[in-house]
């Protein structure tokens, strides 16, 4: 056996570029890019296209870095759950230490570069988002409270605030409301999914509301959050980033969402089992559309503004 073959065998599990990219959770990054872009575009100040592009890119890298750190910390539970078994660390393609190194390096890189490209507030918000997601959510609260979805949702809700800060250098009632939309949307979205999927969070000892408080309580939670979400969405409509177009979209979508939440609240698991969780599935599908269309409508208002049509 030559030295070359020994070397080859020793690195059989060596990761490719795509495996490292997968550590950054590309699907989550796409939501981060979209909502951060909306936050930046609806802001009253205009931003140089190159600065806007770079800032969104660095926000996405920061989001990806927190994903890598999440996968590093959660490698033990990822190995136990079907949904996450194929991730780069549990599948043996990437070492845990590599994920940690990549996550820390990209976090520092993204925060510093965002600070240089835009302003210190945007960089500070990105740093806080990474800290919140990795330390507060992943390391501390995810495994001890059934409200983990609510806390994790907060981390995912920051990007439009960061986008707004890139453009304005500040925080406004509009950016806080955009944060609240994603924050309030995440729990009903995820709990609806939890109702109709057989999750193996129990094996991984991650407390989920459906298990700790029961499925009836989860249905109540979905309804309550949907009402708060509707209030937040309508409140956004009367701010400077809202307008008749957004308001129409928000009224229709929230009416449909509340109707769906009512149907989920009214029935029990026996009824849901009978039709294979049809209402829960419909509600979940609508929730995917809900967030995308709301932020899209906000962008629509901004796009209509140059023609004298956007806003109130």
């Amino acid at each position, binding site marked *: 056996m030559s030295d070359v073959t020994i070397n080859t065998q020793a690195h*059989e599990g060596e990761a490719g570029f795509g495996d490292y990219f997968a550590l950054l959770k590309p699907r989550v990054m796409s939501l981060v890019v979209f909502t951060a872009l909306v936050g930046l575009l609806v802001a009253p100040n205009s931003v140089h296209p190159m600065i806007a592009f770079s800032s969104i890119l660095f926000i996405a890298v920061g989001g990806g870095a927190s994903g890598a750190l999440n996968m590093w910390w959660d490698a033990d539970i990822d190995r136990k759950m079907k949904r996450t078994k194929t991730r780069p660390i549990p599948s043996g393609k990437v070492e845990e230490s590599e994920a940690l190194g990549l996550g820390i390096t990209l976090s520092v890189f993204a925060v510093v570069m965002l600070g240089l490209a835009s302003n210190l507030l945007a960089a500070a918000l990105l740093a806080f988002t990474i800290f919140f997601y990795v330390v507060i959510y992943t390391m501390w609260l995810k495994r001890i409270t059934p409200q983990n979805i609510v806390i994790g949702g907060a981390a995912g809700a920051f990007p439009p605030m960061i986008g707004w800060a890139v453009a304005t250098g500040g925080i406004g009632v509009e950016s806080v409301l955009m944060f609240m939309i994603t924050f309030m949307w995440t729990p009903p979205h995820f709990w609806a999914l939890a109702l109709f999927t057989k999750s193996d969070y129990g094996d991984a000892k991650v407390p989920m509301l459906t298990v700790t408080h029961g499925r009836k309580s989860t249905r109540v939670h979905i309804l309550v959050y949907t009402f708060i979400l509707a209030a937040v969405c309508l409140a956004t409509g009367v701010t400077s980033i809202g307008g008749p177009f957004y308001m129409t979209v928000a009224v229709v979508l929230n009416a449909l969402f509340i109707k769906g939440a009512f149907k989920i609240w009214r029935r029990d698991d026996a009824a849901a089992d009978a039709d294979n969780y049809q209402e829960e599935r419909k509600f979940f599908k609508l929730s995917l559309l809900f967030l995308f269309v709301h932020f899209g409508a906000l962008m629509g208002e901004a796009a209509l503004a140059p023609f004298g049509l956007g806003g109130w």
Partner: protein
Amino acid sequence: MNFPKEHEIHKRRMGRNLGVGLVLAAFIAIVFGLTIAKINNGGQVQGLDHSGTTVTEADQ
């Protein structure tokens, strides 16, 4: 020494090296683009310069 034929691992390494190379090239392009944008924006350049910032604040 007897080299075996190219292993799948070598392709993977090649892909990884190429990927890192492209990312670095893209980073250089972004920093260059950002520099041009900042210079065109004028005042923003001083934001990166501590002495410039102090002067600007003092002027205000």
